[in-house]
């Protein structure tokens, strides 16, 4: 089972509406993605907390339907 990039983006957007999201399909198999997520809500949080917010947005799909999502999070400049 795999997810497409649009589904991933929509899930993240639902939790982090202000987020700017860039998703790349690394292997073309719908199973290995890289995502850059930029959101004001990350401000003041460490990397672990920022990634946890994204994982939470993905509602349990991470590690399940979604095998690999390389994450890079940051706050807007």
């Amino acid at each position: 089972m795999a997810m497409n990039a649009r589904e991933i983006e929509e899930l993240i957007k639902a939790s982090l509406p202000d987020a700017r999201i860039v998703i790349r399909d690394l292997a073309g198999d719908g199973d290995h993605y890289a995502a850059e997520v930029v959101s004001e809500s990350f401000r003041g949080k460490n990397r672990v907390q920022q990634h946890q917010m994204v994982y939470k947005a993905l509602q349990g799909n991470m590690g399940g339907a979604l095998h690999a999502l390389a994450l890079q999070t940051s706050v807007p400049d």
Partner: protein
Amino acid sequence: MSDINAFIDNEVKSNDVLLFMKGTPTFPQCGFSGQVVQILDYLGVEYKGVNVLENADIRQGIKDYSSWPTIPQLYVKGEFVGGCDIIREMFQAGELQTFFADKGIAVAQAA
């Protein structure tokens, strides 16, 4: 606290640098685990690897323990530092070396 949670908690607190991974430091069985192994080996940090593929309870238990859905997971002095992405990002920024130094963990090679 369940048995598995108590076991994980004890492992995390009794090893200065602990890596939950797929495979072993000598034979990583997943590219993400392998990347963290390479970084730790490059830095010459002493660490213990726990192979989650050998025990399904630990594999699930560690995800619950940290509220983190993926393996590998690196713990330093009882603190969850991050998974593969965070460790790589910290390493590339030179932060990981400083982090180990601040925690009093010996690093063999200066970056």
